[in-house]
């Protein structure tokens, strides 16, 4: 005696599904629009929560890019013994420059080194006290950027063992320290992101829980007139999804705004280190990840809450 069965205009399963979901989408968006302040407040909390890991991740991406710009600067300074005169030094530089895997070998004579030291160190006057130039001649060797790290290291090690080389310094320790620090920070960002994802879950779940409580009467009536659980659950799931996606949008805007306000000092900073080109802006991947995480967390939180609370509302 089902009324629907006798109706010739009964919809097909596919169009029925589409219709049900379109209606739920329209109804939930309408409900959220009717209380914009509350919606925005919840979305803002989610936005801030998502913006933090997204922002950290973006900064990290920027540092990573900047430091890979420094990778080419894996190089060695070979300090030549004083017994070698300038001509011999230049000859050695030419030999090294021709070696396979060497991109550049630059000879800095004792005088040039002194002049450079005088300009940059601020100890110029102190040097005048000394009777002769204490600085050795240097050959700065830069290996080919395409060379694998291990081979480049082997090459530099070999060069430092040349008899004319009194001592040598590999300019790569600080880089390795930077990488180690970045790895720690990266792990930290992951941990923070995990904790904040939990926070998003709780925020959305609590909002949906209040929503369910305030619509208790409506749910009872719907159950009385034969609405299936899927029908009653659907608007809450979409509401959770909208909260998550709106939060994601706000998070992206916040990260972009933060990036713009940091752009100038960051440029100065990266200029000082001669690496990278300013702070990295929010990448497309990150935008997708933020929207994906926001939407999924909102939907999951709603699913979780609805599962816990809807069953308890039964007409009697």
């Amino acid at each position, binding site marked *: 005696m*089902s009324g*629907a069965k006798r109706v010739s205009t009964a919809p097909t399963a596919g169009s029925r599904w589409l*219709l049900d979901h379109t209606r739920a989408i329209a109804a939930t968006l309408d409900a959220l629009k009717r209380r914009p302040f509350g919606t925005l407040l919840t979305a803002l909390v989610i936005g801030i929560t998502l913006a933090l890991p997204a922002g950290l991740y973006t900064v990290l991406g920027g540092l990573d890019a900047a430091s890979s710009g420094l990778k080419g600067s894996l190089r060695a300074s070979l300090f030549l013994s004083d017994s070698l005169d300038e001509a011999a030094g230049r000859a050695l530089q030419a030999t090294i420059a021709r070696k396979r895997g060497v991109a550049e070998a630059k000879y800095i004579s004792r005088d040039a080194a002194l002049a450079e030291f005088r300009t940059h160190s601020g100890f110029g006057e102190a040097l005048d006290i000394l009777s002769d130039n204490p600085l050795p001649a240097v050959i700065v060797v830069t290996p080919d950027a395409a060379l694998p790290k291990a081979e480049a290291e082997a090459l530099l090690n070999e060069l430092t063992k040349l008899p004319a080389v009194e001592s040598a310094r590999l300019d790569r320790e600080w880089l390795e320290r930077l990488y180690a620090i970045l790895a720690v920070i990266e792990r930290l960002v992951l941990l923070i992101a995990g904790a904040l994802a939990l926070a998003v879950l709780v925020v959305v779940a609590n909002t949906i829980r209040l929503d369910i409580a305030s619509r208790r009467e*409506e749910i009872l009536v*719907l159950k*009385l007139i*034969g*609405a299936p*659980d899927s*029908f009653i659950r659907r608007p809450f799931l979409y509401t959770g999804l909208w909260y998550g996606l709106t939060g994601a949008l706000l998070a992206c805007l916040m990260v972009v705004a933060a990036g713009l306000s940091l752009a100038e000092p960051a440029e100065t900073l990266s200029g000082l280190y001669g690496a990278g080109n300013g702070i990295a802006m929010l990448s497309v991947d990150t935008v997708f990840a933020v929207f994906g995480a926001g939407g999924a967390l909102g939907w999951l939180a709603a699913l979780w809450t609805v599962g816990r609370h809807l069953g308890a509302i039964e007409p009697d």
Partner: protein
Amino acid sequence: MSDALIRFTGVSHRYRDGGREILRDTDFQLARGEMAFLTGPSGAGKSTLLKLIALLERPVKGEIVVDGQTLSKVRTRDVPAHRRQFGMIFQNFNLLPDRTVFDNVAMPLIIRGHSGDDIGRRVRAALDAVGLRGREKDWPVTLSGGEQQRVGIARAVVAKPRLLIADEPTGNLDPTMAAEVMHLFTRFNEVGVSVLVATHAIGLISRLPYRILKLEDGLLADARAATGDGT
């Protein structure tokens, strides 16, 4: 198979929190197309009997068959589908206050996934049938009690069920409105809808030519057989 739309066989019920037996070994039938009243003092079990039909409660003992379906075999997840087979009308109307008259009446059709055009047509027809044509955009709170109950009836009939179940539908209405509402039920019965109304408005129903069932101390008795051709 009898031609009974509703059949109770030896149904007993008591609520879980202990207490007395609300229904005791009740046998009762409502024929297809029949209209009947269920009366009795408060707490006699009128509402309980209707709740058993709507699967809001499951009986402790006995068998209930509605339109050939044995209710004890209806699984929990199929309860909503069972409830969609008939229209229910409530004493407190149970309208959704934040939706218009149209949206309230349309709700059963939205649940069933009807198209927008179809819904518009059927809702207007249902509102027309209860005398509320043109009130689609009103809010429930702006209506009188009688009008709200008519919205409730329009919602119950909009999906064209074969059975209407009403629990004290006139309990919150003044006598004139109550008479109007009862009159509406007889009109739907005339076009073939079976109607079961629980009520204690004896004065109102004694003038009508339908069977009256009386519940007292958990026992059901025919207080009066149908006097006219109520079917």
